[in-house]
């Protein structure tokens, strides 16, 4: 186990730990805007995981789409809904204690399922990079590709119709 | 055509850029402390008192016309008295508050005895506002040679007028 593998695995686990912390903070923090920022950090953490697994194209797409576009949307939504005046939106959450019961239950089920399934860790047959993805999209999966673009088109037109009414 | 105006604008700025290396007309900065602009004859900043021979024999006779006529009332004069209490024809105190004076030059016009004129000195910064800008008589007094150095023509005219009056 040369030093590099050791460094690589520790970095990998560090990234995972970072994601967990950011996700936990994103849920628990009181200020709406802070949780949006922590969500962005979790997404970037996931992109770092992809980098470590040499799936660079997916990592770049993850950052470009999630953090670049969707997070901006979420932050806009956060800004427009909460009253701009006061800093934190009050979250009323009286009885914190009883939440641990369902949480524990769900956690137990998940962990047991993870431990039981046989993860086969074989090398991926074809190196997944932009070129192979592009060919697959255009050859085998051209139909779903077109349907998705149709859905996006409908969403676009819907947005314009709503905005135009003002 | 749509984009032409934008290009002409770019042309003007780059022309100014290149020409600034060749003609002084396009590079008008005067490096102040090293180079200085020569002020003209009539440039005026703050009033000074002119004396002929010695600083304590001012031309001023303390008639207080300038104190009355000064718009912001920044001149204050106290007439001198000899021991017997008879008022003399010169000021005991004559101070101008330079921080109040707005260098309008009216005192110079109304003074019948050619004693108060506008100086050209503008670098008068000080650390303290109240005392340092209250110019007393001795700080105001400037010799006639200094006056004729900074304002040659007016000094010449004043000399002819004084000679004519003495005759």
């Amino acid at each position: 186990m040369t030093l590099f593998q050791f460094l690589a695995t520790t970095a990998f686990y560090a990234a995972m730990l970072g994601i967990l912390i950011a996700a936990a903070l994103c849920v628990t923090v009181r200020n709406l805007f802070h949780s949006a920022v922590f969500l962005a950090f979790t997404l970037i953490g996931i992109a770092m995981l992809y980098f470590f697994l040499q799936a660079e194209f997916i990592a770049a797409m993850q950052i470009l789409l999630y953090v670049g576009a969707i997070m901006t949307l979420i932050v806009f939504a956060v800004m427009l809904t909460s009253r701009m005046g006061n800093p934190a939106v009050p979250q009323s959450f009286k009885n914190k204690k009883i939440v641990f019961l369902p949480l524990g239950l769900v956690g137990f089920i998940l962990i047991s399922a993870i431990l039981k399934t046989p993860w086969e860790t074989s090398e991926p047959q074809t190196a997944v990079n932009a070129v192979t993805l592009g060919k697959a999209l255009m050859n085998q999966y051209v139909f779903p590709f077109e349907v998705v673009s149709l859905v996006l088109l409908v969403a676009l037109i819907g947005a314009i119709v709503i905005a135009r009414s003002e | 055509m749509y984009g032409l105006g934008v290009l002409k604008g770019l042309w003007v700025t780059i022309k100014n850029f290149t020409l600034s290396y060749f003609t002084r007309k396009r590079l008008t900065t005067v490096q102040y402390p090293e180079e200085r602009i020569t002020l003209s004859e009539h440039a005026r900043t703050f009033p000074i008192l002119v004396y002929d021979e010695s600083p304590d024999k001012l031309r001023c006779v303390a008639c207080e016309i300038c104190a009355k006529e000064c718009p912001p009332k920044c001149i204050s004069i106290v007439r001198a008295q000899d021991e017997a209490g008879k008022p003399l024809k010169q000021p005991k105190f004559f101070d101008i508050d330079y921080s109040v004076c707005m260098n309008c030059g009216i005192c110079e016009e109304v003074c019948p005895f050619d004693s108060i004129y506008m100086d050209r000195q503008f670098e008068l910064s000080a650390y303290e506002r109240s005392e340092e800008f209250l110019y007393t008589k001795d700080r105001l007094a400037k010799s006639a040679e200094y006056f004729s150095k900074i304002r040659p023509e007016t000094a010449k005219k004043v000399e002819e007028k004084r000679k004519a009056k003495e005759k």
Partner: protein
Amino acid sequence: MLNTIDQIFIKAKQIILDILSPFLPEWMMILISIFIVIVTLCVFGPVVMMYLTLLERKFIGRMQNRYGPNRCGIFGLLQPLSDGIKMFTKEDIVPQKADPFAHFLGPITVIIPSLLVFSVIPFGRNMIPSDLSIGILFFFAVASTSTLWIFTAAWGSRNKFSLLGGMRAVAQMVSYEIPMLLSIVPALLVVGSFSTVAIVNAQEGLQWFVFTPWGLVGFILFFLTGVAEVNRCPFDLPEGESEIIAGFHTEYSGMKFALFYMAEYMNAFSVSALVTTVYLGGWQGPILPSWLWFFAKTFVLISIMMWFRGTFPRMRVDQLMGFAWRGLLPLAFINLLAAALWVHLSFPLNDILSFCILTVSVLMIYVANRKVAPKKRIYKYAYE
């Protein structure tokens, strides 16, 4: 001889490694070589930024018939140093009502993308910090996050002007990202890979992409959208001084403001570097060493950006959006079509065909926006 000058930086790094190798274990050597590259980038970034500010102030100064800074150092060369010291010593005020976490987070997260982006730019022949197979995509992925961080800074400082600036920044950067990506796609289409080194190698000798019809249109498109993406004049609405004071960085002072200032200039440098890489043949050039060519082209593009700053007034928000959606986006799509045709057909036909497609489309877009375009007026005189 020429080759040694060309590879001078790689040789220097090799010399350092050779000196150190007897003393350190083998795995440490790899870390050190990576470390050298990172240190040079982190030093190179701020130094470029400092002297870009000086270049801009002197260049615009001369445009305005004045000298520009010439008091610190001989020709004002120490001016960036004194600016840096001033930024260090200035008090760092956090407004009382501001949201401390977002206010603190703003400048840090704005500077990270502008530094990360340097890692995929080929500064010279095999002088690229990390040759990713998805170079261009990595550049855009990281650059697109800065929208979010600028908005964090605007929202964190809890001030009405920075809020307006933040909203404008997000609207502008989102709507200029699409034409920017699309103006790059023709070059990728021709080269066939994302990696910046492959793009530069495809432009051998003097066959820069800018001399092809679709390349010229792509170059102009990419340069304009790059200027908008970096918030420089005439698209500098997010920090419109005259309207909303300093936009998203109104409430920042001291070192935090210096980070914003540095991020802006480093982004300007990296966008012009990318434009040179993709359309002006990166470090390809006849005689001079490769990195000299690269820096010469990048500085020409940066001085054009500064030239814009000295000349143009600012666009209004809705005109800016109109320009992006009605002007640049359709042109980008048609340019993509023209490039596809160019690749498909043989030599004489493809240039002519793509050239006339592009000219026709530019005229059509111009006619379509005729109604919006302002008209010239003639004025009457009374009391003739």
